[in-house]
């Protein structure tokens, strides 16, 4: 090997090293993130709502996820429920309810137990809304 090819080899090695380091960094980041998220106790609040279509679900979800302190979110139009997990002190149940109402939907606070029951029930029985709801989408 002459000097030039050694230099080239080193350069390649350097690039490979950079790639490996960057990949590891990303994987680490991905692994660490959920760990960090669970470190501090989060507050959970659940609501019963009146969203009826998948689009409403999307609207509410996209809006709520950017409310202060929101860490996790489950919005479901079939059971008409919303579950928000947020950092204590950054937000309040009332403010979150207001945010849902601002988008034009009901936000009736329920306990996590009630939430669980409703979600389970919906899963077992299926989608329970009026015929009219889907009809609306025709216009």
């Amino acid at each position, binding site marked *: 090997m002459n000097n030039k090819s050694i230099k080239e080899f080193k350069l390649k090695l350097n690039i490979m090293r950079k*790639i490996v380091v960057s990949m590891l960094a990303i994987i680490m980041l991905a692994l660490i*993130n*959920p760990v960090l998220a669970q470190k501090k106790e989060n507050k959970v609040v659940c609501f019963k709502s009146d969203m009826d279509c998948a689009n409403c679900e999307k609207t509410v979800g996209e809006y709520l996820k950017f409310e202060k302190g929101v860490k996790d979110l489950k919005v479901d139009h079939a059971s008409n429920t919303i579950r928000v997990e947020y950092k204590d002190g950054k937000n309040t149940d009332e403010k979150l309810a207001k945010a849902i109402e601002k988008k034009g939907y009901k936000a009736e606070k329920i306990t996590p137990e009630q939430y669980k029951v409703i979600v389970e029930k919906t*899963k077992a029985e299926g989608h329970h809304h*009026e015929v009219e709801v889907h009809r609306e989408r*025709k216009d």
Partner: protein
Amino acid sequence: MRKLIILFIIVFPFVSHAQNLRGIVYGNEQDGKQPLPGVNIFWQGTNSGTASDGDGNFEIRKQEHQHMLVFSFVGYETKTLHVDNLNKLEVILQPNLEIEEVSVVRKNRGTYLSAMETIQTERIGGAELHKAACCNLAESFETNPSVDLSYSDAITGAKQIKLLGLDGTYSLLQVENMPNLRGLATTFGLTYIPGPWMESIQVSKGAASVLNGYDAIAGQINAELKKPDSNEKLFLNVFGNADSRLEFNGNTNIRLKGDTLTTGILVHGHDLSAKNDHNNDGFLDEPLSQMFQVGNRWKFNNHQGYMAQAGINLLWEDRLGGQVDASRNMTPSVDNPYGVSIKNNRFDAFFKTGYVFPNGRTAVAWLSNFSQHETDSYYGLTDYVADETRFYGSAVLTRDLDISGWHTLNSGFSFIFDDFDEMLYGSDIRRIEKVPGIFTEYTYKPNANFTLMAGLRADFHNIFGNFVTPRMHFRYHFANHFTLRGSAGKGYRTANVISENIYMLANSRPLSWKRDVMQEEAWNYGIAFVQNYMLLGRDLTLNAEYFRTDFQSQLIVDRETSSEYILLSPLDGKSYATSLQFDLRWQPVERLDMLLAYRINDIKQTIGGELKEKPLTNKYKGLINLNYTTNLKKWMFDYTVQFNGGGRIPRYPGDMPLGQSDNNFTSFEPYTIMNAQITKYFRYWSIYVGVENLANFKQENPIEGADNPFGPQFSATNVWGPVMGRKIYLGLRFNLNYE
């Protein structure tokens, strides 16, 4: 009342044979199947029907002769079932997510989408488009394993793509399913579609459906632009990079009559006024440029089967490359700096319309576009001026041949008109292409797992005479995990010999051609095998594909035989391209998407009587793409590494550029490029920052003979790697949606 009596009389004779069929209809929702109330259920071709109740239950009278039961519901795909007995039915309808596209989707299901499913296709969606810095269509492929992106030369900033290792001209480029950006737009067209205007891109490999024309040899790339009836109310984007490139994109949708009549306005502008010469060769690394584009499109959809769309687009573009001191108002002369100036003006218009008959089994569609393109340019001392007027029209009739929908026929006719006028080396070259054509394509789909498509078209070309294009595709899904696809077909293409190679003028040797237009002809065969598994609870997709293209006639760019000229001559001998690609997609960690891909290219042409590796083509390409989003997708991290194999540099007898070391005189070494980007999403806006070419790899000496650009050693066309090094960029997006 009278109708009822008539109905009663008609139905009465059969009543004795009628029995009740019961069942339940579900919608396939995100969280599993849900009973679907209010679904229209009727026997095909009759008025006898019912609707499902609140729990999705239904009951319908079945006559002995009635077999085809139709389930139809707005927002879901219509389903037709063959019913033989009275067993209780359980029917699941798939949501039709793009409700606004109902009529198009249904029409497309026959003419286009089903074809896409049968043909090996990659879809690049909105989320993927956010991954790359993505200023335009060309750059959208940076994270794609199948499409290679490179510069044509080191001066004009023109970008080329390659699919299956073959030049982009062998792929049919479409905008909204209509051929576009060809002829004079070939060189710069890929930079004419701003990234933020696009909704999605589909890349399909191998021979395409005959419905789209005779010229998709290596594949087909279709860009779908944002639709005026989408949810987006206002979108704004600004972008800037460390080399002072500034860019603005915006679009707005206006609902004039609900979602029946809508219009969208799209704007794009960019400016690069700073002179960058990072490698100090006295030449700009990329040309100074300005571009402005404005588009307006309309959509009418009566939601009862009729749909029409129309739009116009205007584009002005100005580029100035070459030596750093070149200026826009200088006269090209050996006493002045070497300059390349290119001005493009373009006008585009399109109209498409479709109607789906109420029975849902017949649809008609009309697609047409028109473009007018003017180019005024000079490369050093050589002027090139051209204009082109082009029209494309196509009518398609889609019919299900039987009630079950097993057999579908798409037939129609098309017309291409192309008036091309160009002036180079003082000679005026003019030609008019007129190509009426007819086509038909038969699809056999006995079940969801198998599709066979056979298509044939005949075109009547005023210059090249009549020719026939046969094509065939199949798709077979089996054993739950495997999908096998195959395709074979002929393709033809009109090569605009000069305009397609016009960047070759950035070279001391003049162009020499025998014919200013010729027809290229090739067969393409392909096979693809896709496997889907679950690995650690997450989807794993493995893909292996092999494509082969054999040219019977081709335009060869010969830079090697003559020291006097660059020869643009017809193929005399063999020319082929093979491409073997493997890719793997998986999530090793939740929300971390990983793509690993590797492709080997073997592309050979007969150049100067000898079968040689096609110059400036990478022998292989590897790609790693990692994309991670945090929970709720507030942050997105993206990282791409491309491993590009080495290749051959074309040299002519006596060629010895100065400053080029011997061992990389006739070939170039493999190189690696890395890109990274971070995006932070907020409620109405997002910010992204990224780096292109992180490892700062640059081709040494991209302009040969740079110190004497009017001398015999000058060449800016032996470009195989990046001309520009590491580049940091920052962008903002703002969007507001309708609710």
